[in-house]
């Protein structure tokens, strides 16, 4: 009964309420990415008030970033259990509480906790579910949807930066944190728009789940050991339980592993150039305002590049080969960094910033789209959690390693070379591995086709499903990945 039910469930709407959800995701993702960057304006003042060094203040940002990415799996588990809506609303509340309490902090340690952990965790509960629900509401137009949702980040940054400056000048840092806490509560509003949709893994599984759930509840609410049967089943189901909410079988998934390795490598060189762009500009003698203007150029180009990339990625020619497009974007990004040391004048840096903005936007727009493409919407929830916690390490390591290179050699160019090299390497790796992956997928598809043609009894139903798949996708002959996804969803249903 379960597989048939799932088969009859309607596909992603690709529109309608989906656009409202997209707007909510835009806001939520925007806050998640832009908020930590926007806080930098307050740091100098806080550094003076608490009498700390610059690196101690920088830890606030690092803890926040680490928590946002590190809490990914927790986010995934919660979404698998409760759906996106309550998780995002709770996340928004947590962010608000975090910043409001930060306004009353009297030491740097308290700031680490309030701004770093609490707000960071709240943002994690915002980011992942938003990305997940976009994947649930869109299929045909998913690249465009992803591109638009990710565009939230530069838009929010361009809004937050002057807003933070204004708040700081009028209310000081404490008042600003208080008001920012209230502003973050808007994430709850964004979350409220995330109407649940689609077949959920928890629903589809067999009655074993029910007992497992009760056993777990029993374990949590009662401190002492739970006697007799529930305990036994709970013990056995614990691993299954975790596996139900966080799909560890993904580690056997070829596409997932390729994505994981490639991305973890890429993030080592992804953020450092942005962090050091303004200091590098000042180092070459450019004044502070022009240096800040470079970042503005980057943000504006980024803002336009993301939806544009989404549209391109959605087109008939690119979508089946979207992994190649992604690899290209990463390699392009790396090439920009490698060429940056050649730009010595301000005009050169402006050109670099524009191309960097373009490349950065392209990569970000497709970051989650490619993962969805590889693992399918159903397993994406767990996939995104596992990927973010792995990326967490390299994201945190990137800028400090760049900083060490700059301090050791006294020259920024080695940092750019390192970042460029790492990204070109990552891009090439992804390109080659995905070529291999596509070939394997095509082979498996052929094998499956010949197997199914042998089974006459389920033939008609399968054809019906295949036709449905064909109809709901574009009229391209080579949409292996999309059909593969359909097969994957089927595989999962049959697997339980």
């Amino acid at each position, binding site marked *: 009964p379960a597989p048939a039910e799932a088969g*009859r*469930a*309607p596909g992603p709407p690709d529109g309608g309420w989906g656009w409202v959800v997209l707007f909510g995701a835009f806001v939520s993702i925007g806050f998640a990415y832009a908020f930590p960057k926007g806080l930098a304006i307050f740091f100098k003042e806080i550094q*003076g*008030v608490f*009498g700390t060094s610059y690196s101690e203040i920088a830890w606030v940002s690092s803890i926040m970033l680490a928590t946002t990415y590190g809490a990914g799996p927790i986010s995934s588990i919660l979404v698998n259990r409760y*759906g996106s809506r309550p998780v995002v609303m709770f996340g928004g509340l947590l962010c608000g509480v975090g910043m409001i309490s930060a306004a009353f902090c009297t030491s740097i340690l308290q700031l680490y906790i309030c701004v770093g952990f609490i707000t960071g965790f709240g943002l994690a509960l915002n980011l992942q579910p938003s990305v997940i629900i976009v994947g649930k509401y869109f299929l045909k137009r998913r690249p465009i949807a992803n591109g638009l949702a990710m565009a939230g980040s530069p838009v929010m940054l361009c809004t937050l930066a002057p807003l933070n400056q204004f708040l*700081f*000048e*009028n*209310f*000081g840092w*404490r*008042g*600003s944190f*208080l*008001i920012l*806490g*209230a*502003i973050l*509560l*808007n994430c*709850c*509003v964004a979350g*409220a*728009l995330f*109407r*649940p*949709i*689609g*077949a*959920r893994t928890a*629903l589809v599984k067999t009655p074993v789940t029910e007992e497992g759930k009760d056993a777990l509840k029993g374990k949590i609410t009662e401190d002492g050991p739970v006697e007799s049967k529930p305990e036994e089943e709970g013990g056995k189901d614990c691993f299954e339980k975790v596996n139900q909410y966080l799909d560890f079988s993904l580690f056997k998934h070829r596409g997932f592993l390729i994505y994981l390795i490639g991305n973890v490598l890429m993030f080592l060189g992804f953020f450092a150039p942005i962090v050091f762009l303004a200091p590098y500009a000042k180092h070459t003698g450019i004044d502070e305002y022009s240096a800040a203007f470079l970042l503005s150029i980057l943000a504006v180009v980024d803002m336009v590049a993301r939806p544009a990339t989404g549209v391109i990625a959605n087109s008939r020619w690119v979508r089946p080969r979207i992994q190649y497009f992604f690899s290209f974007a990463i390699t392009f990004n790396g090439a920009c960094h490698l060429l940056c040391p050649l730009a010595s004048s301000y005009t050169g840096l402006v050109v670099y910033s524009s191309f960097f903005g373009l490349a950065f936007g392209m990569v970000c727009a497709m970051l989650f789209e490619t993962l969805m493409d590889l693992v399918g919407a159903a397993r994406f929830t767990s996939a995104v959690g596992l990927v973010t916690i792995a990326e967490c390490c390299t994201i945190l390591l990137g800028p400090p390693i760049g900083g060490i290179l700059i301090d050791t050699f006294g020259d920024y160019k080695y940092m750019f070379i390192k970042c460029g090299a790492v990204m070109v390497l990552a891009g090439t790796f992804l390109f080659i591995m995905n070529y291999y992956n596509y070939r394997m997928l095509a082979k498996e598809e052929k094998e499956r086709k010949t197997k199914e043609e042998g089974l006459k009894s389920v033939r008609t139903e399968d054809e019906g499903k295949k036709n449905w798949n064909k109809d709901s996708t574009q009229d391209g002959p080579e949409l292996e990945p999309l059909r593969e996804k359909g097969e994957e969803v089927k595989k999962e249903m049959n697997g339980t």
Partner: protein
Amino acid sequence: ILTGVSGATLEKNVYVPSPTTVELTCKLDETSNLKNPQVTWKKESETIGHTSKTPNSWTIQLTISDSSKLGSYTCILKGEKEVSAVFHLQVPKIEGKEKPLITYEGDKAVMICKAEYDPKAWAWYMTNGTELVSIDKILPTEKFQIKKLSANVNRLEILKLTKQDRGIYWCEATFDLGKSKARFEVRVLSITAPLKPFVAVVAEVAILLTTIILFEIYSKMRGEGGEKEFDQIEQL
């Protein structure tokens, strides 16, 4: 031991922290129209002779022994046109904060004064009407704390702020050749000041949330007559 200037009319600030010898050079750009001009060095209006001369550059050497030697030195190149450059020799400036410092009642205010060179002494003043009142000597230490973070950075903390504490504060650094001042403006806000925008934003969030929840309930009631499948999914 310092600088050269080339081209058209220019000004340059030269900071002299302690008695030393200073060399000022005026260099003429090769592309300039002036050939073999007549050169005069002036301090304010008085003329002084120049010491060394090379093609297209003229230098004077000055011994700055006390504050009277500080001031504006001009080199004038006269030919068909007159071109001049001014060097302002002065005591180093110290850095304060141009924008006002926003603080709250009961909180503490922190003012950090930085200098590029090490001064001999630091002093802090607050303005009482038109008078400058010295802080370090007179006023109590539970309220005011002065810390020396390093030789060239000094810090004033004002604790347990009240509305009366607002105003202009001065940080003064004493160098061998003179004194330099930096200005800080302190504003003390009451806690209710940021509360107004805060409450406004929270109200906006509450209104939007209520609207969305009501809308969801309304559309659920409308959709109840529809397919059962949707219902099952939505109950989540």
